[in-house]
């Protein structure tokens, strides 16, 4: 009888927690799984990779020499970039410009994808508020933009991918052409709302993104690079989002809409970079 009462109280407390403190329950459940998921990441990196290296020695040797060449090339590019940065800082001082707000890159391994329901296009990362991550921080890889942080707990964060139907990114075309000016639009992930277009968006089916509200008089050529415009509150300017496939006039004829293939292969994400802010905003 005592134990039945105990279970009844536990049930009532659980329901109360889910109704009145859902955000806290979400943080607690993510933190509860974090040590085990992090252990799996460690296992993949330390044990599995070494096991694969033993089994595929010949291929690993070729890959190592290719990576060494890439590292040497990137070191040269980094040295050039450092020299340019010094020159820019010197010119800013001479012209009395205010110093830019800088970001810090925080590497984060991917713990899991899609959560437990696989309804939204999201990934969970092994970095959280203890590492300086905040809601709204952009997430990128060298190829381009991945998404933005939507929820944060002490050791983990949830990232909504740009392929999610709820994602919106302020973008512009990189090199629209002479005499055209800047061509800007809003990038929509995946597709329209389910009521209008009831098709499903699966996590790894690369649905083209839609770039809407482009200037109607300019038809951009295919393969134009689409980058972030820096006008929204989240993404700094100039990050690659994807490549334009084709464009057409919208139904009302007032603007142009284009389909964009994302630059990042969302199925192959193992480690990403979070741009954590300094000074309250991202660099422009």
């Amino acid at each position: 009888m005592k134990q039945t009462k105990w279970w009844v109280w536990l049930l009532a407390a659980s329901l109360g927690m889910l109704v009145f403190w859902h955000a806290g329950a979400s943080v607690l459940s993510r933190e509860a799984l974090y040590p085990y998921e992090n252990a799996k990441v460690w296992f993949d990196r330390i044990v599995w990779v070494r096991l694969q290296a033993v089994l595929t020695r010949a291929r690993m040797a070729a890959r190592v020499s290719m990576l060494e060449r890439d590292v040497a090339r990137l070191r040269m590019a980094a040295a050039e970039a450092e020299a340019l940065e010094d020159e820019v800082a010197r010119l800013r001082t001479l012209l009395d410009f205010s110093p830019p707000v800088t970001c810090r890159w925080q590497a984060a391994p991917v713990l899991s994808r899609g959560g437990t329901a696989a309804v939204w296009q999201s990934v969970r990362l092994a970095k959280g508020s203890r590492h300086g991550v905040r809601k709204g921080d952009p997430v990128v890889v060298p190829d381009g933009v991945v998404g933005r942080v939507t929820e944060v707990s002490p050791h983990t964060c949830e990232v909504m991918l740009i392929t999610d139907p709820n994602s919106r990114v302020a973008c512009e075309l990189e090199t629209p052409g002479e005499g055209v000016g800047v061509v800007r639009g809003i990038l929509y992930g995946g597709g329209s709302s389910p009521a209008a277009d009831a098709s499903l968006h699966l996590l790894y089916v690369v649905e083209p993104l839609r770039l809407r509200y482009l200037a109607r008089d300019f038809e951009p050529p295919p393969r134009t690079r689409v980058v972030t415009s820096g006008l929204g509150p989240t993404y700094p300017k100039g990050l690659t989002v994807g490549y334009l496939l084709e464009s057409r006039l919208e139904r009302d004829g007032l603007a142009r809409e284009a389909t964009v293939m994302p630059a990042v292969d969302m199925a192959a994400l193992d480690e990403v970079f979070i741009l954590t802010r300094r000074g309250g905003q991202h660099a422009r």
Partner: protein
Amino acid sequence: MRVDMQFPVLVFTLLMAALMQDLSPVIDAFPVKPVFLTAVALYAALTRPIWVALTAAVWAGGLTDTLGDLPPLCTPLFLMLLYGSVRLLQRVFLVAGLLQGALLTAAAAAAQWLWTRLWLHGSAALATLESLKVLGYTVQAGLLAGLTGFVFCGLTDRLSGLVKPVKEGHGILWAETDR
């Protein structure tokens, strides 16, 4: 107060189910997640007293919603309704066997997918060929989750001592009655 052994067993099985469901990959060939949490809730519905089974349903649903970024009470409500249905069907599903578990979980997985889509997007999201395709995948995922979940829960029950071997009323084990 003596600790009820069902509490740590429930916590352990739900934690392992949440971990497996969260870590399972979503790929083109199989674009849904196996519903291990639902399988654990169904096992509890078949083998536990009412309040323990309802608590398992609420916790399993809560974990699905919080880790899957779904609205609050979306899955706990479904699992509590599922518990009611299972109790009504108890005459058909007498024991928590593997076959019964797999079939129940397969049906529950499809129903859970429909429930979640209706809750999030309304009926317009269901009337497509894609929806039927994904429904087929959810049934397969449910079969897999049911088999794995019921095996794991049964093993945990045996190891924890919640399930004990049956003895004869006069104290002599049946294996010794022929001597």
